[in-house]
Protein backbone atom coordinates (compact mmCIF):
# COMPACT_ATOMS: atom_id res chain seq x y z
CA UNK A 1 0.00 0.00 0.00
CA UNK A 2 1.30 3.39 -0.93
CA UNK A 3 0.85 4.80 2.54
CA UNK A 4 3.34 2.34 3.90
CA UNK A 5 5.78 3.32 1.25
CA UNK A 6 5.32 6.99 1.78
CA UNK A 7 5.50 7.24 5.53
CA UNK A 8 8.84 5.52 5.77
CA UNK A 9 11.37 7.90 7.16
CA UNK A 10 14.91 8.19 8.12
CA UNK A 11 13.83 8.88 11.68
CA UNK A 12 10.17 8.38 12.52
CA UNK A 13 10.17 9.74 16.04
CA UNK A 14 8.21 12.75 14.91
CA UNK A 15 7.96 14.11 18.43
CA UNK A 16 10.37 17.01 18.24
CA UNK A 17 8.65 18.70 15.34
CA UNK A 18 11.89 19.22 13.44
CA UNK A 19 11.80 18.92 9.68
CA UNK A 20 13.65 15.84 8.52
CA UNK A 21 13.07 14.05 11.80
CA UNK A 22 9.50 13.04 11.03
CA UNK A 23 7.73 11.25 8.19
CA UNK A 24 6.81 13.16 5.09
CA UNK A 25 3.21 14.00 4.25
CA UNK A 26 3.44 12.40 0.89
CA UNK A 27 1.15 13.08 -2.06
CA UNK A 28 1.64 11.70 -5.56
CA UNK A 29 2.59 13.70 -8.62
CA UNK A 30 1.63 12.40 -12.05
CA UNK A 31 2.82 12.84 -15.61
CA UNK A 32 -0.06 15.20 -16.41
CA UNK A 33 1.08 17.55 -13.64
CA UNK A 34 -1.70 16.71 -11.20
CA UNK A 35 -1.15 15.97 -7.53
CA UNK A 36 -3.38 13.79 -5.34
CA UNK A 37 -3.56 12.89 -1.69
CA UNK A 38 -3.64 10.03 -1.05
CA UNK A 39 -1.51 8.67 -3.88
CA UNK A 40 -3.27 6.51 -6.46
CA UNK A 41 -2.02 4.14 -9.13
CA UNK A 42 -2.74 6.72 -11.84
CA UNK A 43 -4.01 10.31 -11.88
CA UNK A 44 -7.73 11.11 -12.27
CA UNK A 45 -7.01 11.36 -16.00
CA UNK A 46 -5.09 8.10 -16.11
CA UNK A 47 -1.56 9.53 -16.18
CA UNK A 48 1.22 7.55 -14.54
CA UNK A 49 2.91 8.50 -11.28
CA UNK A 50 6.19 10.30 -11.72
CA UNK A 51 7.07 11.55 -8.27
CA UNK A 52 6.02 12.66 -4.84
CA UNK A 53 5.21 15.93 -3.15
CA UNK A 54 5.62 16.59 0.57
CA UNK A 55 2.50 18.46 1.63
CA UNK A 56 4.27 19.82 4.71
CA UNK A 57 5.77 22.35 2.34
CA UNK A 58 2.42 23.94 1.49
CA UNK A 59 0.05 26.17 3.38
CA UNK A 60 -3.40 24.77 4.02
CA UNK A 61 -6.76 26.22 5.00
CA UNK A 62 -9.87 24.60 6.43
CA UNK A 63 -12.61 23.97 3.86
CA UNK A 64 -15.01 22.55 6.42
CA UNK A 65 -14.95 20.82 9.79
CA UNK A 66 -17.04 18.86 12.25
CA UNK A 67 -16.78 17.70 15.83
CA UNK A 68 -17.88 14.09 16.00
CA UNK A 69 -19.16 12.93 19.38
CA UNK A 70 -20.10 9.36 18.41
CA UNK A 71 -16.77 7.83 17.57
CA UNK A 72 -15.88 4.23 16.74
CA UNK A 73 -13.81 1.98 19.01
CA UNK A 74 -10.26 3.24 19.54
CA UNK A 75 -10.95 6.80 18.39
CA UNK A 76 -10.67 9.87 20.63
CA UNK A 77 -14.01 11.27 21.73
CA UNK A 78 -14.93 13.85 20.71
CA UNK A 79 -13.05 13.89 17.44
CA UNK A 80 -12.76 17.15 15.54
CA UNK A 81 -12.10 16.53 11.86
CA UNK A 82 -11.43 18.91 9.01
CA UNK A 83 -11.05 18.84 5.26
CA UNK A 84 -8.20 21.17 4.37
CA UNK A 85 -7.11 22.51 1.00
CA UNK A 86 -3.47 23.14 0.14
CA UNK A 87 -2.27 26.18 -1.72
CA UNK A 88 -0.09 24.50 -4.34
CA UNK A 89 1.21 27.75 -5.79
CA UNK A 90 0.56 29.74 -8.94
CA UNK A 91 2.28 27.27 -11.23
CA UNK A 92 0.00 24.40 -10.26
CA UNK A 93 -3.14 24.17 -12.41
CA UNK A 94 -4.38 20.68 -11.55
CA UNK A 95 -7.35 19.67 -9.41
CA UNK A 96 -7.42 21.04 -5.88
CA UNK A 97 -5.32 19.11 -3.40
CA UNK A 98 -7.07 18.38 -0.14
CA UNK A 99 -6.70 16.11 2.84
CA UNK A 100 -8.99 15.06 5.65
CA UNK A 101 -7.64 14.71 9.14
CA UNK A 102 -8.05 15.22 12.83
CA UNK A 103 -7.66 18.74 14.14
CA UNK A 104 -4.89 19.25 16.69
CA UNK A 105 -5.14 21.54 19.66
CA UNK A 106 -3.78 25.04 19.18
CA UNK A 107 -0.25 25.12 20.46
CA UNK A 108 -0.53 21.53 21.68
CA UNK A 109 2.01 18.77 21.53
CA UNK A 110 2.52 17.19 18.18
CA UNK A 111 1.85 13.61 19.17
CA UNK A 112 -1.19 11.54 20.05
CA UNK A 113 -3.30 11.78 23.16
CA UNK A 114 -4.50 15.32 22.84
CA UNK A 115 -8.13 16.37 23.28
CA UNK A 116 -10.37 16.22 20.26
CA UNK A 117 -12.78 19.06 21.08
CA UNK A 118 -10.99 21.76 19.11
CA UNK A 119 -13.10 24.59 17.68
CA UNK A 120 -12.01 26.03 14.36
CA UNK A 121 -13.56 28.00 11.51
CA UNK A 122 -13.83 27.64 7.77
CA UNK A 123 -10.86 29.47 6.24
CA UNK A 124 -8.56 29.01 9.22
CA UNK A 125 -4.92 28.41 8.33
CA UNK A 126 -3.49 25.12 9.60
CA UNK A 127 -0.19 23.28 9.68
CA UNK A 128 0.35 19.49 9.67
CA UNK A 129 1.62 17.95 12.91
CA UNK A 130 2.69 14.34 13.04
CA UNK A 131 1.11 11.75 15.37
CA UNK A 132 2.30 8.17 15.85
CA UNK A 133 -1.17 6.70 16.36
CA UNK A 134 -4.23 8.57 15.17
CA UNK A 135 -6.46 5.83 16.59
CA UNK A 136 -5.85 2.59 18.44
CA UNK A 137 -4.92 -0.11 15.93
CA UNK A 138 -6.99 -3.24 16.38
CA UNK A 139 -9.75 -1.62 18.43
CA UNK A 140 -11.96 -1.33 15.37
CA UNK A 141 -12.95 -3.83 12.72
CA UNK A 142 -9.99 -3.27 10.39
CA UNK A 143 -7.05 -5.65 10.58
CA UNK A 144 -4.21 -3.73 12.29
CA UNK A 145 -1.56 -4.92 9.85
CA UNK A 146 -3.59 -3.94 6.79
CA UNK A 147 -2.69 -0.26 6.97
CA UNK A 148 -0.63 2.29 8.85
CA UNK A 149 -2.04 4.26 11.76
CA UNK A 150 0.27 7.25 12.02
CA UNK A 151 -0.20 10.47 10.11
CA UNK A 152 -0.77 14.18 10.27
CA UNK A 153 -3.26 16.19 12.23
CA UNK A 154 -3.94 19.81 11.37
CA UNK A 155 -3.10 22.44 13.94
CA UNK A 156 -4.57 25.93 13.59
CA UNK A 157 -1.96 28.61 13.02
CA UNK A 158 -2.59 31.97 14.65
Amino acid at each position, binding site marked *: *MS*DHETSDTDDATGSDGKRGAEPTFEAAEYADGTV*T*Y*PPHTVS*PNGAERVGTVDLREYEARI*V*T*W*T*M*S*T*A*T*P*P*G*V*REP*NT*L*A*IVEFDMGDEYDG*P*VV*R*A*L*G*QVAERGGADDAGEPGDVEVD*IGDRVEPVYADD*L*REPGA*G*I*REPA*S*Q*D*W*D*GFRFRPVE
Partner: protein
Amino acid sequence: MERVAVIGASMTQFGQRDAWVQELLAEAGAAALDDAGIDGGDLDHLYVSNMASGEFEGQTGVPNALAHDLAATGAYTARIDQTSSSGGAGVYAAWQSVASGASDVTMLVGGEKMTHRTTSEATDVIASLTHPVEYKHGVTLPSFAGLTARLYLDEYDAPRESLGKVAVKNHRNGVDNPHAQFQKEVDLDTVLGSPVVADPLRLYDFCPITDGSAALVFCPESVAQEYVPEDEYAVISGIGGATDTHVVHERADPTTMGGVVDSSEIAYEMAGVGPDDVDVAELHDMFTILEFLQSEDLGFFEKGEGWKAVEEGVTDRDGDLPINTSGGLKSKGHPLGGSGVAQVYEIYQQVTGNAGPRQVEADTGLACNVGGFGNCVTTAILEGGR
Protein backbone atom coordinates in the same frame (compact mmCIF):
# COMPACT_ATOMS: atom_id res chain seq x y z
CA MET B 1 -33.80 -5.59 -24.59
CA GLU B 2 -36.87 -6.67 -22.63
CA ARG B 3 -38.74 -4.09 -20.60
CA VAL B 4 -38.83 -5.30 -17.03
CA ALA B 5 -41.85 -5.32 -14.75
CA VAL B 6 -42.12 -5.54 -10.98
CA ILE B 7 -44.97 -7.96 -10.23
CA GLY B 8 -44.66 -8.48 -6.50
CA ALA B 9 -43.17 -6.78 -3.46
CA SER B 10 -42.95 -6.97 0.28
CA MET B 11 -41.17 -5.52 3.25
CA THR B 12 -40.92 -6.69 6.82
CA GLN B 13 -41.41 -4.61 9.89
CA PHE B 14 -38.30 -2.42 10.20
CA GLY B 15 -36.79 -1.74 13.61
CA GLN B 16 -35.34 -3.87 16.38
CA ARG B 17 -36.21 -7.45 15.53
CA ASP B 18 -35.52 -10.75 17.26
CA ALA B 19 -35.00 -12.44 13.89
CA TRP B 20 -31.51 -12.85 12.42
CA VAL B 21 -30.58 -12.04 8.85
CA GLN B 22 -31.52 -15.36 7.29
CA GLU B 23 -34.95 -15.26 8.94
CA LEU B 24 -35.51 -11.63 7.92
CA LEU B 25 -34.64 -12.40 4.31
CA ALA B 26 -36.91 -15.44 4.26
CA GLU B 27 -39.78 -13.46 5.76
CA ALA B 28 -39.63 -10.80 3.05
CA GLY B 29 -38.92 -13.31 0.29
CA ALA B 30 -41.88 -15.54 1.13
CA ALA B 31 -44.20 -12.54 1.29
CA ALA B 32 -43.05 -11.23 -2.10
CA LEU B 33 -43.51 -14.63 -3.73
CA ASP B 34 -47.00 -14.73 -2.27
CA ASP B 35 -47.69 -11.19 -3.52
CA ALA B 36 -46.68 -12.20 -7.05
CA GLY B 37 -48.62 -15.45 -6.83
CA ILE B 38 -45.62 -17.68 -7.52
CA ASP B 39 -43.49 -20.24 -5.71
CA GLY B 40 -39.77 -20.38 -5.04
CA GLY B 41 -39.50 -23.05 -7.71
CA ASP B 42 -40.59 -20.48 -10.34
CA LEU B 43 -37.45 -18.38 -9.79
CA ASP B 44 -34.63 -18.51 -12.33
CA HIS B 45 -32.48 -15.99 -10.46
CA LEU B 46 -32.45 -15.03 -6.78
CA TYR B 47 -30.34 -12.10 -5.59
CA VAL B 48 -29.65 -10.99 -2.04
CA SER B 49 -28.65 -7.39 -1.34
CA ASN B 50 -26.64 -7.35 1.86
CA MET B 51 -23.66 -5.33 2.98
CA ALA B 52 -22.20 -7.09 5.96
CA SER B 53 -23.92 -10.19 7.34
CA GLY B 54 -20.49 -11.72 7.86
CA GLU B 55 -19.22 -8.73 9.83
CA PHE B 56 -22.41 -8.12 11.80
CA GLU B 57 -23.47 -11.68 12.50
CA GLY B 58 -20.86 -14.13 11.27
CA GLN B 59 -23.33 -15.48 8.71
CA THR B 60 -22.16 -15.68 5.11
CA GLY B 61 -23.58 -17.54 2.13
CA VAL B 62 -27.00 -16.01 2.63
CA PRO B 63 -28.27 -16.34 -0.98
CA ASN B 64 -27.88 -20.09 -0.94
CA ALA B 65 -29.49 -20.28 2.49
CA LEU B 66 -32.40 -18.22 1.26
CA ALA B 67 -32.85 -20.35 -1.86
CA HIS B 68 -33.07 -23.43 0.34
CA ASP B 69 -35.51 -21.81 2.75
CA LEU B 70 -37.83 -20.73 -0.08
CA ALA B 71 -37.68 -23.98 -2.05
CA ALA B 72 -35.88 -22.13 -4.82
CA THR B 73 -32.95 -24.55 -4.96
CA GLY B 74 -31.71 -24.71 -8.52
CA ALA B 75 -32.03 -20.98 -9.08
CA TYR B 76 -28.90 -18.96 -9.84
CA THR B 77 -28.04 -16.95 -6.73
CA ALA B 78 -25.67 -14.13 -5.91
CA ARG B 79 -25.08 -11.70 -3.08
CA ILE B 80 -24.94 -8.05 -4.10
CA ASP B 81 -22.77 -5.87 -1.88
CA GLN B 82 -22.41 -2.21 -2.70
CA THR B 83 -22.41 -0.99 0.93
CA SER B 84 -25.48 1.14 1.67
CA SER B 85 -26.50 1.00 -1.97
CA SER B 86 -26.51 -2.79 -2.07
CA GLY B 87 -30.29 -2.64 -2.48
CA GLY B 88 -30.14 -0.37 -5.50
CA ALA B 89 -27.34 -2.43 -6.98
CA GLY B 90 -29.52 -5.49 -6.45
CA VAL B 91 -32.37 -3.83 -8.34
CA TYR B 92 -29.89 -3.18 -11.14
CA ALA B 93 -28.73 -6.82 -11.15
CA ALA B 94 -32.28 -8.14 -11.08
CA TRP B 95 -33.36 -5.77 -13.85
CA GLN B 96 -30.33 -6.78 -15.90
CA SER B 97 -31.05 -10.49 -15.48
CA VAL B 98 -34.54 -10.11 -16.94
CA ALA B 99 -33.76 -7.41 -19.50
CA SER B 100 -30.98 -9.54 -20.94
CA GLY B 101 -33.18 -12.59 -21.23
CA ALA B 102 -31.05 -14.59 -18.83
CA SER B 103 -33.94 -15.01 -16.40
CA ASP B 104 -37.70 -15.18 -16.86
CA VAL B 105 -38.49 -14.64 -13.20
CA THR B 106 -36.07 -13.04 -10.73
CA MET B 107 -36.49 -12.20 -7.09
CA LEU B 108 -34.38 -9.71 -5.16
CA VAL B 109 -34.36 -9.75 -1.37
CA GLY B 110 -32.41 -7.12 0.53
CA GLY B 111 -31.84 -7.00 4.25
CA GLU B 112 -29.57 -6.54 7.21
CA LYS B 113 -29.46 -7.44 10.90
CA MET B 114 -27.72 -4.68 12.87
CA THR B 115 -29.34 -3.82 16.19
CA HIS B 116 -27.55 -6.48 18.23
CA ARG B 117 -24.41 -4.37 17.78
CA THR B 118 -23.68 -1.21 19.73
CA THR B 119 -23.90 2.07 17.84
CA SER B 120 -20.12 2.36 18.04
CA GLU B 121 -19.61 -1.13 16.58
CA ALA B 122 -22.20 -0.69 13.85
CA THR B 123 -20.74 2.70 12.93
CA ASP B 124 -17.30 1.11 12.62
CA VAL B 125 -18.56 -1.72 10.39
CA ILE B 126 -20.05 0.89 8.07
CA ALA B 127 -16.95 3.11 8.28
CA SER B 128 -14.83 0.19 7.14
CA LEU B 129 -15.76 1.18 3.59
CA THR B 130 -13.52 4.23 3.87
CA HIS B 131 -10.01 4.64 2.48
CA PRO B 132 -7.17 3.86 4.94
CA VAL B 133 -6.17 7.53 5.11
CA GLU B 134 -9.74 8.34 6.16
CA TYR B 135 -10.27 5.37 8.48
CA LYS B 136 -7.17 6.00 10.58
CA HIS B 137 -8.48 9.44 11.51
CA GLY B 138 -11.65 7.89 12.94
CA VAL B 139 -13.88 9.10 10.15
CA THR B 140 -17.46 7.84 10.19
CA LEU B 141 -20.28 8.32 7.72
CA PRO B 142 -22.00 10.69 10.19
CA SER B 143 -18.83 12.78 10.34
CA PHE B 144 -18.81 13.07 6.54
CA ALA B 145 -22.37 14.34 6.88
CA GLY B 146 -21.33 16.91 9.48
CA LEU B 147 -18.46 18.12 7.29
CA THR B 148 -20.71 18.44 4.26
CA ALA B 149 -23.61 20.01 6.13
CA ARG B 150 -21.39 22.79 7.51
CA LEU B 151 -20.04 23.54 4.05
CA TYR B 152 -23.51 23.48 2.46
CA LEU B 153 -25.01 25.83 5.04
CA ASP B 154 -22.06 28.17 4.61
CA GLU B 155 -21.92 28.14 0.81
CA TYR B 156 -25.64 28.46 0.17
CA ASP B 157 -26.60 30.60 3.13
CA ALA B 158 -29.11 27.98 4.24
CA PRO B 159 -30.53 28.11 7.76
CA ARG B 160 -29.72 25.23 10.12
CA GLU B 161 -33.45 24.85 10.68
CA SER B 162 -33.98 23.72 7.08
CA LEU B 163 -32.10 20.48 7.80
CA GLY B 164 -34.28 19.92 10.83
CA LYS B 165 -37.37 20.32 8.68
CA VAL B 166 -36.29 17.33 6.59
CA ALA B 167 -36.42 15.21 9.74
CA VAL B 168 -39.78 16.68 10.76
CA LYS B 169 -41.27 15.98 7.29
CA ASN B 170 -39.99 12.44 7.03
CA HIS B 171 -41.10 11.52 10.53
CA ARG B 172 -44.53 12.91 9.68
CA ASN B 173 -44.64 10.66 6.61
CA GLY B 174 -43.49 7.66 8.61
CA VAL B 175 -46.52 7.87 10.87
CA ASP B 176 -48.57 6.35 8.05
CA ASN B 177 -46.10 3.61 7.24
CA PRO B 178 -46.91 0.51 9.31
CA HIS B 179 -43.48 -0.95 8.51
CA ALA B 180 -41.52 2.10 9.69
CA GLN B 181 -39.18 1.89 12.66
CA PHE B 182 -40.46 5.23 14.00
CA GLN B 183 -44.15 5.90 13.49
CA LYS B 184 -44.21 9.13 15.41
CA GLU B 185 -43.89 12.80 14.62
CA VAL B 186 -41.11 14.97 15.96
CA ASP B 187 -41.18 18.75 16.14
CA LEU B 188 -38.43 21.11 15.08
CA ASP B 189 -37.49 22.05 18.63
CA THR B 190 -36.91 18.39 19.45
CA VAL B 191 -34.69 17.96 16.38
CA LEU B 192 -32.68 21.10 17.07
CA GLY B 193 -32.40 20.31 20.76
CA SER B 194 -31.23 16.72 20.37
CA PRO B 195 -27.63 15.79 21.23
CA VAL B 196 -24.85 16.77 18.83
CA VAL B 197 -23.52 13.81 16.86
CA ALA B 198 -21.41 15.50 14.19
CA ASP B 199 -21.63 19.25 14.54
CA PRO B 200 -23.74 20.94 13.12
CA LEU B 201 -25.83 17.78 12.84
CA ARG B 202 -27.69 16.31 15.78
CA LEU B 203 -29.23 12.98 16.65
CA TYR B 204 -32.47 13.58 14.75
CA ASP B 205 -30.54 14.42 11.59
CA PHE B 206 -29.50 10.76 11.40
CA CYS B 207 -31.31 7.56 10.51
CA PRO B 208 -31.42 4.80 13.09
CA ILE B 209 -29.70 1.42 13.14
CA THR B 210 -32.22 -1.08 11.86
CA ASP B 211 -33.08 -4.72 11.30
CA GLY B 212 -35.30 -5.44 8.32
CA SER B 213 -35.76 -6.79 4.84
CA ALA B 214 -37.65 -6.06 1.63
CA ALA B 215 -38.18 -7.99 -1.59
CA LEU B 216 -39.21 -7.49 -5.22
CA VAL B 217 -40.18 -9.93 -7.98
CA PHE B 218 -39.35 -9.16 -11.61
CA CYS B 219 -40.35 -10.57 -15.00
CA PRO B 220 -40.52 -9.33 -18.60
CA GLU B 221 -43.31 -6.77 -19.07
CA SER B 222 -44.54 -8.82 -22.00
CA VAL B 223 -45.72 -11.55 -19.62
CA ALA B 224 -46.49 -9.48 -16.52
CA GLN B 225 -50.24 -9.84 -16.97
CA GLU B 226 -49.88 -13.61 -16.74
CA TYR B 227 -49.08 -13.01 -13.07
CA VAL B 228 -50.94 -9.88 -12.03
CA PRO B 229 -53.57 -7.49 -13.46
CA GLU B 230 -52.38 -4.51 -15.52
CA ASP B 231 -52.88 -2.04 -12.70
CA GLU B 232 -50.84 -4.07 -10.24
CA TYR B 233 -47.47 -4.08 -11.88
CA ALA B 234 -44.92 -1.37 -12.50
CA VAL B 235 -42.24 -1.06 -15.15
CA ILE B 236 -38.65 -0.13 -14.51
CA SER B 237 -38.47 2.37 -17.33
CA GLY B 238 -35.00 3.64 -16.50
CA ILE B 239 -32.10 2.62 -14.30
CA GLY B 240 -28.53 3.78 -13.96
CA GLY B 241 -25.60 3.19 -11.68
CA ALA B 242 -22.44 5.23 -11.19
CA THR B 243 -19.59 5.84 -8.79
CA ASP B 244 -17.81 8.87 -7.38
CA THR B 245 -14.36 9.01 -5.77
CA HIS B 246 -13.63 6.59 -2.95
CA VAL B 247 -11.78 9.33 -1.09
CA VAL B 248 -14.44 11.91 -0.30
CA HIS B 249 -12.15 14.94 0.03
CA GLU B 250 -10.92 14.46 -3.56
CA ARG B 251 -14.26 15.55 -5.07
CA ALA B 252 -14.15 18.85 -6.92
CA ASP B 253 -17.26 20.07 -5.11
CA PRO B 254 -17.90 18.34 -1.79
CA THR B 255 -21.56 19.38 -1.93
CA THR B 256 -22.15 17.57 -5.22
CA MET B 257 -22.58 13.80 -5.48
CA GLY B 258 -21.28 12.93 -8.91
CA GLY B 259 -22.70 9.41 -8.73
CA VAL B 260 -26.19 10.84 -8.27
CA VAL B 261 -25.75 13.16 -11.24
CA ASP B 262 -24.36 10.45 -13.50
CA SER B 263 -26.71 7.62 -12.52
CA SER B 264 -29.78 9.81 -12.87
CA GLU B 265 -28.74 11.04 -16.31
CA ILE B 266 -28.52 7.42 -17.45
CA ALA B 267 -31.88 6.58 -15.89
CA TYR B 268 -33.63 9.65 -17.32
CA GLU B 269 -32.31 8.95 -20.80
CA MET B 270 -33.37 5.30 -20.67
CA ALA B 271 -36.85 6.24 -19.45
CA GLY B 272 -37.20 9.13 -21.86
CA VAL B 273 -38.15 11.47 -19.06
CA GLY B 274 -36.58 14.30 -17.09
CA PRO B 275 -36.67 15.49 -13.51
CA ASP B 276 -39.83 17.50 -14.17
CA ASP B 277 -41.67 14.29 -15.06
CA VAL B 278 -41.06 12.68 -11.67
CA ASP B 279 -44.16 12.68 -9.47
CA VAL B 280 -42.72 11.15 -6.31
CA ALA B 281 -39.23 10.23 -5.12
CA GLU B 282 -37.55 8.16 -2.46
CA LEU B 283 -34.14 9.61 -1.62
CA HIS B 284 -31.40 8.18 0.56
CA ASP B 285 -31.81 10.41 3.62
CA MET B 286 -29.37 8.51 5.81
CA PHE B 287 -28.60 12.04 7.01
CA THR B 288 -30.85 15.06 6.49
CA ILE B 289 -28.21 16.84 4.41
CA LEU B 290 -28.33 14.03 1.85
CA GLU B 291 -31.90 14.87 0.92
CA PHE B 292 -30.76 18.36 -0.12
CA LEU B 293 -27.79 17.09 -2.10
CA GLN B 294 -29.72 14.41 -3.94
CA SER B 295 -32.73 16.59 -4.71
CA GLU B 296 -30.34 19.02 -6.39
CA ASP B 297 -28.09 16.48 -8.10
CA LEU B 298 -31.13 14.66 -9.50
CA GLY B 299 -32.14 17.94 -11.14
CA PHE B 300 -35.28 18.54 -9.10
CA PHE B 301 -33.95 21.87 -7.85
CA GLU B 302 -31.13 24.25 -8.70
CA LYS B 303 -27.81 23.77 -6.90
CA GLY B 304 -28.00 25.27 -3.45
CA GLU B 305 -31.79 25.55 -3.49
CA GLY B 306 -32.91 22.15 -2.25
CA TRP B 307 -33.28 23.60 1.23
CA LYS B 308 -35.75 26.19 -0.04
CA ALA B 309 -37.99 23.43 -1.42
CA VAL B 310 -38.22 21.89 2.03
CA GLU B 311 -38.87 25.27 3.65
CA GLU B 312 -41.67 25.96 1.14
CA GLY B 313 -43.33 22.56 1.52
CA VAL B 314 -42.65 21.53 -2.07
CA THR B 315 -41.44 18.11 -0.91
CA ASP B 316 -44.27 17.50 1.55
CA ARG B 317 -46.66 14.68 0.82
CA ASP B 318 -49.16 17.22 -0.51
CA GLY B 319 -46.49 19.30 -2.24
CA ASP B 320 -45.57 19.47 -5.91
CA LEU B 321 -42.86 16.83 -5.54
CA PRO B 322 -43.37 14.56 -2.54
CA ILE B 323 -40.07 13.16 -1.30
CA ASN B 324 -39.80 10.18 1.03
CA THR B 325 -43.48 9.42 1.44
CA SER B 326 -42.39 6.22 3.17
CA GLY B 327 -40.75 8.23 5.93
CA GLY B 328 -37.38 7.76 4.28
CA LEU B 329 -34.44 6.09 5.93
CA LYS B 330 -34.80 8.71 8.63
CA SER B 331 -38.11 7.42 9.95
CA LYS B 332 -38.59 4.06 8.26
CA GLY B 333 -35.10 2.86 9.21
CA HIS B 334 -31.97 1.84 7.34
CA PRO B 335 -31.15 -1.86 7.29
CA LEU B 336 -28.26 -1.23 4.85
CA GLY B 337 -28.81 -3.88 2.15
CA GLY B 338 -32.56 -3.64 2.56
CA SER B 339 -32.94 0.11 2.12
CA GLY B 340 -32.59 0.39 -1.65
CA VAL B 341 -35.09 -2.42 -2.09
CA ALA B 342 -37.52 -0.79 0.33
CA GLN B 343 -37.22 2.49 -1.59
CA VAL B 344 -38.36 0.76 -4.78
CA TYR B 345 -41.05 -1.02 -2.76
CA GLU B 346 -42.48 2.39 -1.83
CA ILE B 347 -42.32 3.71 -5.39
CA TYR B 348 -43.93 0.49 -6.64
CA GLN B 349 -46.79 1.00 -4.18
CA GLN B 350 -47.15 4.64 -5.22
CA VAL B 351 -47.25 4.11 -9.00
CA THR B 352 -49.63 1.16 -8.69
CA GLY B 353 -51.93 3.15 -6.39
CA ASN B 354 -51.47 0.87 -3.40
CA ALA B 355 -49.75 3.22 -0.94
CA GLY B 356 -52.82 3.60 1.27
CA PRO B 357 -52.75 6.70 3.46
CA ARG B 358 -49.39 7.67 1.96
CA GLN B 359 -50.77 7.67 -1.60
CA VAL B 360 -49.97 10.64 -3.82
CA GLU B 361 -50.82 11.33 -7.46
CA ALA B 362 -48.02 9.45 -9.18
CA ASP B 363 -47.52 7.85 -12.56
CA THR B 364 -43.73 8.11 -12.47
CA GLY B 365 -41.54 7.64 -9.43
CA LEU B 366 -37.82 7.66 -8.75
CA ALA B 367 -35.66 5.92 -6.17
CA CYS B 368 -32.08 7.00 -5.48
CA ASN B 369 -29.97 4.69 -3.35
CA VAL B 370 -26.57 5.92 -2.15
CA GLY B 371 -23.64 3.85 -0.91
CA GLY B 372 -20.87 5.24 1.25
CA PHE B 373 -21.03 9.02 1.18
CA GLY B 374 -22.10 9.14 -2.45
CA ASN B 375 -19.40 6.63 -3.43
CA CYS B 376 -21.78 4.36 -5.36
CA VAL B 377 -25.28 5.26 -6.50
CA THR B 378 -28.18 3.58 -8.29
CA THR B 379 -31.14 5.56 -9.59
CA ALA B 380 -34.27 3.73 -10.76
CA ILE B 381 -37.38 5.15 -12.42
CA LEU B 382 -40.66 3.25 -12.22
CA GLU B 383 -43.89 3.81 -14.11
CA GLY B 384 -47.25 2.25 -13.41
CA GLY B 385 -48.27 -0.50 -15.82
CA ARG B 386 -51.80 0.86 -16.14
